[in-house]
């Protein structure tokens, strides 16, 4: 269970509050206007931003002061998810061992993760030799091997077209099915939220609202979500 306990994050004069819990295995979409603080909230959970007040806990463990790499969190960013000078196998391998001293078992795991996301046999390729969609798949393969219980997506598929994005979301859904991880994803698109999440938190006016069931929220949006959706 992820708990945001009286959390208040500030970044450059802008401030965001959140005070709610998310059950294990939930899939949450953070939706709202640009600059409302969706990415700020993810940065706070991932440990890039220390809270001004309150704390983030996971299963009762306080994460305050835990560095990003030691948190139970895997994160995909808007861009720069792969290191261009490393092969796909090395990029995925970083998720297993940051020192890249991979055993043959590890290499096996990496190869099968790449195969799982549809990149079988491309282990030795560099990211530059891949399409945008393939790069997203490789990043997801790393999420797969990291086996961290929380997955944060900060619009990693924003640069892809609608069909490819839907494909990636389905792949995320499948990965979550295998790892049982809890998902928090930032999105601008109600369809994306409806496609793979069961909960929505509207982020607006300096506040991330308590999560509500996705379909319900989209069918009967409150004033903030209604304004965002233009209804």
């Amino acid at each position, binding site marked *: 269970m992820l708990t945001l306990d009286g959390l208040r994050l500030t970044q450059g004069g802008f401030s965001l509050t959140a005070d709610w819990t998310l059950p294990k295995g939930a899939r949450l979409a953070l939706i709202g206007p640009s600059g409302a603080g969706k990415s700020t909230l993810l940065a706070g959970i*991932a440990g890039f931003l220390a809270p001004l007040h309150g704390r983030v806990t996971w299963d009762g463990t306080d994460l305050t002061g835990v560095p990003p*790499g030691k948190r139970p969190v*895997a994160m995909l960013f808007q861009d*720069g998810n792969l*290191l261009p000078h490393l092969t796909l196998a090395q990029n995925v391998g*970083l998720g297993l061992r*940051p020192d*890249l001293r991979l055993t043959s078992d590890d290499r096996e795991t990496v190869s099968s993760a790449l195969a799982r996301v549809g990149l079988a046999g491309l282990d030795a390729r560099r990211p530059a030799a891949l399409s945008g969609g393939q790069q997203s798949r490789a990043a997801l393969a790393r999420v797969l091997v990291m086996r961290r219980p929380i997955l944060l997506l900060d619009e990693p598929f924003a640069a892809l077209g609608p069909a490819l994005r839907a494909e990636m979301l389905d792949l995320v859904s499948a990965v979550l099915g295998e790892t049982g991880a809890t998902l928090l994803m930032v999105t601008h698109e109600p369809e994306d939220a409806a496609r793979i999440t069961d909960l929505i938190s509207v982020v607006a006016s300096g506040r991330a609202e308590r999560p509500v069931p996705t379909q319900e929220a989209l069918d009967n949006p409150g004033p903030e979500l209604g304004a965002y959706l233009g209804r």
Partner: protein
Amino acid sequence: MLRLGGAAALLVAALILAPLAAVLWRAGGAGWPGPADWAALRFTLLQASLSAILSAAFAIPVARALARRRFAGRAALITLMGAPFILPVIVAIAGLLTIFGRNGLVNSALEALGLPPIDIFGLHGVLLAHVFFNLPLAVRLLLEGWRAIPAEHFRLAAQLDLPPATIFRTLEWPMLRARLPGICAVIFAICLSSFATVLILGGGPAATNVELAIYQAFTFDFDLGRAAVLSALQLVIVAAAAVLALILAGNGTAAPGLDRLVQRWDGAGGLRLWDAAVLTLAAAFVALPIALVLGRGAASVLSLPVSIWMAAGVSLLVALASAAISVLLALALALPRRRRFEAVGLMTLAASPLVLGTGLFLLIRPFTFPGNHVLAITALVNAAMALPFVLRSLSPEIRQIEATYGRLSDSLGLGGWHRFRWLLLPRLRRPLGFATGLAAALSMGDLGVIALFPPPEAATLPLEIYRLLGAYRTEAAAGASLILTALSFGLFLLFDRMGRHADT
């Protein structure tokens, strides 16, 4: 990483501050500067001011012509303008002597015409050499300024059919007014610490700068107190000039970079001839001395004495050691994500080689004879002198890598050595190669602190050339200059290429 940075910062601070403290401490007991010292100070400030003004003034028409002309060989000409930075000072002076020296080309021509000979020694000779080194630098920095003028403005000027004089007043002069003070300040600061040039072309009561006076106090009088007083004087003016240059030049002017082409429509007709003449003169001024000394050297390079080849070996080792020290220190200073360590690296801007050398001499002397460690001292001082340049090429890249991949690496738990090995090193190869090459080349060509305690054997190559020039063995000096130039540029190109080719 933080602890490593702290240790390196401490080491650099100790390396710079301890010798300076030693100098100041020794100077404290040695009394006030005498009339000769004040004369040296006046000459230092005079020649540095004139060098800065002349270099910048001559650079304006050259940079303007380069900015508005497109021609075959333009890129080569810009590259040539970068050459004097790596070219060993002693080689350039040997080159200038083959043209303007007692038996140089100019005097031979004058003699043939029955005219009296000119004399290169004195203030004007020093200025000539300083303009040779700094005119190209000023041209490159000014060219940056021209490139920073938006192409749209020139398009608009062409649309309005503005005459060249109006273009100059409305577009170019504001840029020049903003950049010239910084450029002058940089050249002024560089020329304050000029040693080899003044050692050879200056001298005498009328043309001795503070660096040369330190050297003379050391080698002729062995008056350590006076050397320390002069060093303290030099420290004050160089530190002040460095601060001034950093303030005036800001961050934008010191990194000549991309050659973006701006299409220009102005400057047809007579201006074409003017620009062609300016560029031809500038190219000849920079290329001719180098070409002459190297061409002459080719004839004698095979008959050089063994001692020259041994000196080349010594110089090579010192250069490699110096580059390694400089790059390791710069990495340790720039890698920690807190930037306060980096400022420590800039402290070396305040110290000149001879001041550092004097300080190190004073520090070491109670324990051992400094002359036995002259090569180690030289490598150390050269590393300190190259440090600001090395930091300058590595630090922005490291910030860029951290800005792009820092969070990803954090979330993967990629830290410490592994972060260096898998994230930074692969992406830093290009600037690392460049910086290593630069540091090695600068050390290779250095004739500074080694002259303070010249070892009877195992001298460096620049010192050997200085000795040959002093003995009027110009043929051998030219041959050794060829070797030195080849090694300096060879080292730079080798490391730079290694960095580029490792790039993925």
